[in-house]
Each structure stands twice: as C-alpha cells, then as structure tokens.
C-alpha cells in the first residue's frame, strides 16, 4: 500500500502528473485473431481507470498483458518508465509490483487464508514469516475478513474470497492494481462488499485499472473510463461525460444494452 493515504474525490481531483503505466501501440494476436490493435494508454500514478466494453473486446487480454501473463506481439509497455522485462528475476519483481485480482478469485485452494496472503511476501519478497503474518493480518482486517484467517478458501463466501484475493495482492505492496471483472462471479449481495474495499483503495490513492460492468463504481470511483471494442480503444473520457454523453456509436449501443434494465 502507498504509505501516505490521501483523500481524493476521484471524479474531480486532478491525478498526479507522473505516468506510471504506459502502453504504446500495443498489438497482440491469438492466431488469426487480432485481439489488441494499436493500443495507446497512459495511466498516471494515483489514477483509477475503468475499462469497459463488450465481451471478447480484449479487456482481459489488456490487463494480462500489463502483467505480462500474455506476451505482446508489437509495441511497448513500460511501468514506472521501465519496459516490461522479458523473463527471470526482473519479470518476477515487476509482477510483484503489479497486483492482480481475477474474476474467479483464484485463491490457492490448499492454503489457508493467511497462508494465501503471506505466500508472496515470504517467497518472492523474502520477508520473514512473522513479519509477513503480522502484515497479512492487518490487511485482512482492513478488507474485513480478519476473523477468517485460518479458514480455507472453500469455506468462505465469494465476496469474502475476493476480498482475501485483494489482500493477497496488496501484501506485495504493488504500485498498481489490476482488477479483471472482480465482481462478476459474485452473488448480487456480495458485490457491494467488494466494491467498497475497492472504493476505499481508490480513495487512498492506489493506482488502479479496473475491468468491470459496475457502472455505479465507474461513475463514483473512476478518473477515466476507457471503452474497448474489437481490440481497440474506441473512446476515453471522464465517467460523467462517457455515461451521459458518449461520443461513439459503438459506446452508445453498448450502453443502451447494459443500462436499459
């Protein structure tokens, strides 16, 4: 976590000027499928960017590319001005700096909640087990599952699991957090408890890239909305502008489908 939590009104506060994640003309193919086409995107430190778009438009691939879970075919991605390393120790260090939260939680099923959170710090950061545990408990408290530390993931509700997953990512003290549809596998009543943790993170100044269909979250927490379709960034705008007055037809059409019900 950033050490100095700063309060901000995300919709208004001007983000810090420094560029943290920069994608330049990124291209990516899956076989014949061109899933990322000439993506240019800059995320400043402290900024919260929400990515939305129809299914298959490449949102997940974008997230995964930033963490180099997928390699890219062209263009460049830099984090904190360093290009993504190809492999080895540097890649591991980079990944430790980029937290990732998945749609399906992906908690390690054979480890307790506490072990899930301490695994990274101990094995990757080389922190002592005691220290890692103290910190882990603090994080678990923060996301509201402090009393579940010794349970196994399968014993928790979806919402609780996702909050543990967030704590696990935070334990690595990442510079930026990527969320790939963090609430879409959740029962409706549990969505809010996760969104609240994310809101809180955003308020504290964490840099975040969030793929989500939760328009409420996008409106209230995002500095910027990026709309993707067919592997391209079609529109980038402030949330209120995007939702109230989308420029592209593609976005209008998409919003009409999503917001109608």
């Amino acid at each position, binding site marked *: 976590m950033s050490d100095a939590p700063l309060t901000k009104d995300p919709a208004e506060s001007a983000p810090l000027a420094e560029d943290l994640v920069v994608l330049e003309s990124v291209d990516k193919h899956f076989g014949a499928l061109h899933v990322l086409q000439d993506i240019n995107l800059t995320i400043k430190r402290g900024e919260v960017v929400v990515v939305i778009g129809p299914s298959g438009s490449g949102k997940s691939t974008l997230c995964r590319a930033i963490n180099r*879970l997928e390699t890219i075919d062209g263009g460049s991605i830099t984090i904190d001005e360093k290009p993504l390393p190809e492999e080895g120790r540097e890649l*591991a*260090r980079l990944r430790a700096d980029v937290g990732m939260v*998945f749609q399906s939680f992906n908690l390690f*099923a054979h480890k307790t909640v506490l072990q899930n959170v301490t695994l*990274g710090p101990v094995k*990757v950061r080389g922190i002592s087990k005691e220290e890692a545990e103290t910190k882990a408990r603090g994080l678990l408290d923060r996301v509201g599952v402090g009393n579940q530390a010794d349970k196994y993931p399968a014993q928790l509700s979806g919402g609780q699991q996702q909050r543990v*997953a967030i704590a*696990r990512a935070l334990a690595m003290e990442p510079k930026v957090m990527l969320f790939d549809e963090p609430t879409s596998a959740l029962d409706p009543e549990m969505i809010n408890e996760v969104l609240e943790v994310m809101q809180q993170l955003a308020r504290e100044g964490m840099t975040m890239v969030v793929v989500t269909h939760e328009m409420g979250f996008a409106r209230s927490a995002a500095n910027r909305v990026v709309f993707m379709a067919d592997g391209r960034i079609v529109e980038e705008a402030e949330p209120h502008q995007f939702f109230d007055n989308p420029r592209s037809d593609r976005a209008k059409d998409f919003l009409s489908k999503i917001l109608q019900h």
Partner: protein
Amino acid sequence: MFDFLDLEQYDLFGAFWTTVQLTVYSAIGSLIWGTLLAAMRVSPVPIMRAFGTAYVNLLRNTPLTLVIVACSQGLYFTMGVSMGASGSENIAFRLAVLGFIVYTSTFVCEALRSGINTVPVGQAEAARALGLNFSQVLRLVVLPQAFRAVVAPLANVLIALTKNTTVAATIGVAEAALLMRDMIEREAQLIPIAAVFAFGFIVLTLPTGLLLGWVSKRVAVKR
C-alpha cells in the same frame, strides 16, 4: 481338495512376500521416475517435453512382458549389467524391479499430469501474477494440489502394479505366479490352486484400494 497347501515344498508365504517386495520397490522407483517424467512433460524446455512424450508413448504401448524380458535378455544376459547384485535370484529380482519401474513410471507420469490438469488454470496464473517462478509455481501451488487429486489414480496404478508383478515369473523371480506355475505343473489341481492365488491377490489389492480411496477423500482439495 486344498491338501497341497500342507506340502512343505511350497512356500506360499515366501512367494507372496516376494510379490510384496517387488511391488514396494517398484512402486517407490516408479513414483520417483514418474514424477521426474511428469516434470519433464510440463517443463519449459522443448527437448525434455519431447523426450518425456516419446518415452511415455513408446513404453506404454509395449507389452510389459517384453519390457521385463528386455531387461533380462538385453541388459543382463547380453550386456552383463547386473546392477551390483550377485546370485541369480537377486539379479533377476533387480532386473524385474527395473523393468517395472521403467514401465509403471509412464502410468505414474500420466496420472500426475492428469492431476496437474485438475488444478484450475487460475491457480497457476495467480501464482505467476504474484511473481513466483516456474519451479515455485510447480512446487508451492500446482503439485501440492495435483498430488492430492491424484491419490486415487495412483492407487489404481499401484494395484495394477501388484497384479503385474506376476510377469516377473517370465524371468524367474520366485514370486507368486512362478510358484503357481510350479504347483500347476506338479500338482495338476488347477482350480483349487488358482483359487488360492486369486484369494492371495485379493488380500493384497482390495485393502490397498479401500485404504487409498479413503485417503484420497481425506486429502482432496476443497474448491
């Protein structure tokens, strides 16, 4: 009808004891070599994957009898490799164990690989996203879950191995099947003899299956 059981010349327990020993040594060896093979088959190095695949496909498609005979005929009788043993009984025993390991490890490898396959993709991805490297992903996240999923299939491999030790008779290891052949040759009471040996194998394999079945349920990873 079962009067041959009293005959002192037949050491029924000794023969089954050899069967058990064959099984135990081969099982341990197969587990080790099979795990290595499985690691090769999922490793980042293409040549190792190719070797693992070729090895498994060749050996799985060869009758066990031929594998055992190859160990005896090729390795020992032709090339003189006796693996440090002396005395024909010992040599044959070790050759048989080697043959069983060479063969059974392919099944262990495939069982492990299928165990790895039961681990959801997300587990490995989450581990990589934390910054763990290949061996850490494998050691800390994937294999611990794979091994638990794989107790039942491995139990089946073990049971099959127990039954397969009968093939060691072809190269003269004095285990149950050899004794059975001996007794059939001399006592000419086929049905009761076969019944006794069938019973012996049931005693060996059924509890193994039940026990490991129970264990597999105990250790199963809850998702």
